Structures are given as C-alpha cells and as structure tokens.
C-alpha cells in the first residue's frame, strides 16, 4: 500500500493551518510529523483519515496494485489513534475495548490478546474512570492490536507512556513496518529513530 499527498492545504476555522505539503509513504515506511503546536499535525492526520476535507491538493491511498482504494475499503485500511480516546469512565476496561472492537468490526477473539499485549489484562474489570493517563493511552493504543490494518495514524502516541510502554509501542511499530505496514505519526519526541520526517509550520 502507498499513501501520497501532493501540495495539500487545509483549513481550520478560517485559518489555513498548512499549505503546500507533499509526502509519500510506501509499504514498510514510517513518516513522522514534526512542528510546533498548532502547525497542523493533528489536522493533517485527520485529513488523511478523511475526517476533514482538503482545500487544495490531492491525497491518494493506493492499494498494492497502485489503484486508489474505494471509500468503504479506505476506512477499513487504517487505524486512527487520536488523543481524543473515546473512553468513558462509566465503562470497564474490557467493555470499552469490546465496544471499540464492535465499531471497527474486529473479531472479539482478539480482545484478550489485545488487553495482554498492552499490559491491561489485570485492569480488565476495572472502571476506565480509574485509569491513569498512561493506562488510558494504552487502552486506546490497544485498538491497534484488535485488527490488522495496513496504515496506522498515530497522534502523539508516546504521550503519558512510561519507558516500558514506549519500548513496547516501538516494538509493535517496528513489527508492523516489517510486515509491510505504514505509519504516520505526529510527535514532539524522537520516535522510531525518525526514519522519514515531515516538518510542518515555520522553521525556528
């Protein structure tokens, strides 16, 4: 799979947050988005996810044969982990993940494995309202393990995570890339050794 953006510009409210942004991500590659606060990293991720329209330019998600994905297949091609984590304090951890699996259309048999992979098995019956910031983050990242999808869109994935969970995330990402996956991540910290990066906003 391949993700290509050409001379993209996007509007947020009445302000153009970025313009003339071009990038290309091929199978097995990760693109790291850098830039100061408000430079449009989250906006770009939402644009790629199709949640926001673009002002100018062209965005294409191509399958292995180089054909653009149709709309319904497009939504099934990626995971979008934003910092709005869709976690309600009234639901237990396993109920939350079960709901996320339901929305994704992911098989329920992956549920326990996903909880295990992100160190949440012991917290499964706990109310999500009692989770720490890092645990909440792991719960939303656990969506990545519910279903195999080619493209991962990650917004500040390492935020609030402890050293061990960060290492875990890196291992997951490297494994994903080695299976021909794609990653676009917005972050302020070094991530995956910054293989390929895109700077948004003014340079300091």
């Amino acid at each position: 799979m391949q993700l290509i953006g050409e001379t993209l510009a996007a509007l947020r409210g009445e302000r153009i947050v970025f313009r003339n942004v071009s990038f290309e991500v091929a199978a097995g590659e990760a693109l790291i988005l850098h830039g100061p606060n408000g430079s449009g990293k989250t906006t770009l991720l939402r644009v790629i996810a199709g949640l926001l329209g673009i002002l100018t330019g062209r965005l294409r998600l191509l399958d292995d044969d180089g054909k653009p994905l149709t709309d319904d297949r497009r939504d099934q091609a990626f995971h979008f982990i934003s910092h709005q984590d869709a976690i309600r304090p009234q639901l237990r951890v396993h109920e939350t993940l079960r709901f996320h699996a339901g929305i994704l259309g992911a098989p329920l048999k992956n549920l326990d494995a996903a909880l295990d992979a992100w160190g949440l098995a012991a917290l499964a019956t706990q109310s999500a309202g009692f989770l720490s910031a890092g645990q909440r983050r792991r719960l939303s990242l656990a969506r990545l393990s519910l279903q195999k999808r080619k493209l991962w869109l990650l917004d500040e994935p390492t935020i609030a995570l402890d050293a061990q969970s960060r290492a875990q995330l890196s291992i997951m990402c490297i494994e994903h890339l080695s299976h021909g996956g794609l990653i676009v991540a917005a972050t302020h910290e070094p991530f995956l050794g910054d293989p390929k990066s895109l700077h948004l906003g003014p340079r300091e």
Partner: protein
Amino acid sequence: MRTFFALIRRDVTLGIRASGGAALSAAFFALIVVLAPLGLGPDMATLKSASPGLFWIAALLATLLGLERIVQPDVEDGTLDLLRLSPLPLEFVALAKIISHWLTSGLIITILAPALAPLLNLSLDAVPVLALSLLIGTPALSAIGAAAAALGASVQRGGMVLALLALPLNIPFLIFGSTAVAQAQTNTDPTQALTLLGACSLIAVVVGSIAAATSLRLNDD
C-alpha cells in the same frame, strides 16, 4: 450490523450507569404523576379527566432528560470520529442512538405508567391503551430529541436548548396519545388516534434518523 448492536449495547450500559440516565428519567416521570394530584386537589372526577394529558406531559418531559448525554459527549471524546470511520452508515448510528435512548427512557416509562395509573384515578379500561399509546408514541419523542441533540452538538451549543426548541414537534404525539387514552376512558373507540400516533411515530423515527445523521455529518467539516 455488529457495530449497530455494539453501539446500542454500550449506549444502554452508559444510560443505566451514567447520572442523568434511565433512573432519573423514571424518577422524574413518577414524580410528576405523584405530585399532580397534590396540585390538582382531591376531586376524583377532575383527576380522571386530567390524567390522560398528565401522563403524556410527564412522558414528554421525562424523555427530554438524558438527551444531552446521547450525542454531545461522543462529539467531545472522539467516539463520533470512530463512528464516522466505521462501516455503519451514520443514519444507522443515529437509529442506534434513538433506540438506546428509548430503551432507557420511553420503555421504562411505558412499564411504569400502568402501575402509577391509580394515582391519577385513570379508569382501569384505559390502562392498556395508556401503555400501548406510550409504547408506540415514545420512540418518536426519542427520535425528535436525538435529531435536536445532534444538531445542538454539531453547532457546539447546548443540546438541551435545542431539544427544548424542538418541543413543538412533539405536540402531535401529545395530542394523539392523550386523545387515545381519553377516548378509552370514555368508552369511545381509540383505534383512530392510536393508528395516527403509530403512523406519525414511524415517520418521526425515520426522518429523525436521517436528520440526526445529517447534523452529525456537519460536524468538523
């Protein structure tokens, strides 16, 4: 389809557990019915003639509660983003929200109403019609409320205010519903009013789903 049921399951769970959910709706409904005789006085004939209207007004107000929790929080916490990316069309997302809201408000009210009927001196013959009218009429109240709440959430204003503004749309259901119960009480055939109520209710659920979905699409773009 799995997304549809997962959403209903989660919304009903939230509706039961969240403050301002099912329990509040039921308590509010019961309170109006319990307090009405104290306000109207002890005259049994007055109570009897006022009871169909009172039951329906109580049902209408009780279903308004909880509307602000069905769409607005999903917009704020990113659940709506996930739903927009899911294979389920937004019309069905809206329908699932209407069903969940009805299960945690209208359905409970329907079950509760016959038990409260003696308090307002509703004649025994009219009790089944009261239950039936609430059963087929309250889904419409949830549907209109959900459409208003979705519109309110997408323009980032209090969903509750818009739900109140949409209140006039609920008036036909109030009229047909209470008429059917009053007719049953005076031994007139309520079939016509019930049929109209059912027909309007079906239309409201379909139109409400589409309207709510359209409002949800406005979000963000």
